[in-house]
């Protein structure tokens, strides 16, 4: 018998064929499905890790940005403060200067007034003296005799003072 009949059932052949299918199942599982699944899981992990890294980087960038923004805001505030301080300082200095200059002017005025007062008093003294002298001379000439100088002076002084008061 060279060939099998076209329909011939052989138990061992059936068992071998069943075993063949099981073997091929194991082969496919071990050499095709498992490696492919492993590499896919690995890829998924890598992608996940990349995402996490990107998220972290973005988070850090956000933090940096916030930090810079805060810093910029702080710097702006500081600049404002400095300007305000400077303005205040300038204002106060201005006032001081004004005050000082006013003071000086007052002093000058006061001094001038005092000078004037003194000059006037001096002038009045000298005038008074001259008037006394002149009036003495005149009265000596008129009366012809020397009057008591001191009495006379007192008399005239009072007269002149009265004159000055009425003026």
């Amino acid at each position, binding site marked *: 018998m060279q060939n099998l009949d076209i329909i011939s059932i052989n138990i061992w052949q059936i068992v071998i064929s069943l075993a063949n299918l099981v073997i091929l199942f194991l082969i*496919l599982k071990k050499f095709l499905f498992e490696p492919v699944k492993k590499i896919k899981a690995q890829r998924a992990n890598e992608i996940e890790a990349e995402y996490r890294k990107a998220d972290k980087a973005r988070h850090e960038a956000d933090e940096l940005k916030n930090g810079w923004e805060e810093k910029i805001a702080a710097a702006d505030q500081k600049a404002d403060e400095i300007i305000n301080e400077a303005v205040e300082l300038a204002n106060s200095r201005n006032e001081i200067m004004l005050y000082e200059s006013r003071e000086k002017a007052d002093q000058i005025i006061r001094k001038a007034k005092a000078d004037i007062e003194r000059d006037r008093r001096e002038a009045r003294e000298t005038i008074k003296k001259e008037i006394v002298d002149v009036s003495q001379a005149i009265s000596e000439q008129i009366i012809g005799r020397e009057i008591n100088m001191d009495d006379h002076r007192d008399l005239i002084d009072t007269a002149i003072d009265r004159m000055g008061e009425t003026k």
Partner: protein
Amino acid sequence: MSIIFLILSVLSFAAAIAIKVMFVPASQGIDIAGAHIFFTIKMPVQDLPITESQVNSWLIIFGILFLCLFLTSGLKTRDISVRQLVAEWIVETVTNLVKTNMGEFFEGFAPFVAAILGLSAFSSLSSLLGLFPPTSDINIVGGWALLVFILITYYKMKAGPLIYLRSFGQPVPLLAPLNIISEFATPVSMAFRHYGNVLSGSIISVLVAVGLSELSKMLFRFLPGVLADFPYLRIGIPAVLSVYFDLFSGCLQAFIFAMLTMSYVSGGFPAEEYAARKKKREQRKAAREAVLASNRHKGS
């Protein structure tokens, strides 16, 4: 490096052709017979003849093994090669097919379904290489169907043998004999469908080829000498049939066999009863542990 696997894969098919050329005598005329027997091994119950279909299916398994090794060598996570793309496509497609047809619970069936698809398709397509297609041997396909039958019964029994036995009395106990017959008819019909399709394809091909050569002899009788005997009509015309019977029918039968396997296994599996049983078992386990824990507590 990986190209060696591809060469080995091709070599296993070449080996099948070489064996056929060396050991199988050429057939003459109309010759419809089973696989060629190389030698017979004495075995209990029944002798085991080592036939073309056996050898071819082993060589096909080797071919698929080396093909897998070729596809999965040098897997990378990025910059993937076309090879890896093909491997991933195969895995993904079969896994999706299994998931949609059988549900998440049977996801582990993906390599098995891939094995059925691959073995059946390669076996049927091996006739394109002039080999004896192992799928046209009832014993080969019968073995697969028997394995599928075992799986079906195993998954039916998963919710308890009692539920399995009770399912024969559905919907009326009177139908029990019919249910038992249909249970055994499942693997038989699967085996015969596949085997019959492939075998009938080869038979029709042979008949058509012979018929065409006779027809051409009749039509070209007027030509002188040897020219009259040349079968002109056998040029090209049988190829059209071969496209249907070998290519289309081979792939289609592989797909049908895989689909039937999936639907029978998942359809026979009583998911609700299994879930209930699992839950009950877990509850019992928890109760036992609670008792144990209380005993230990008392002991200490």
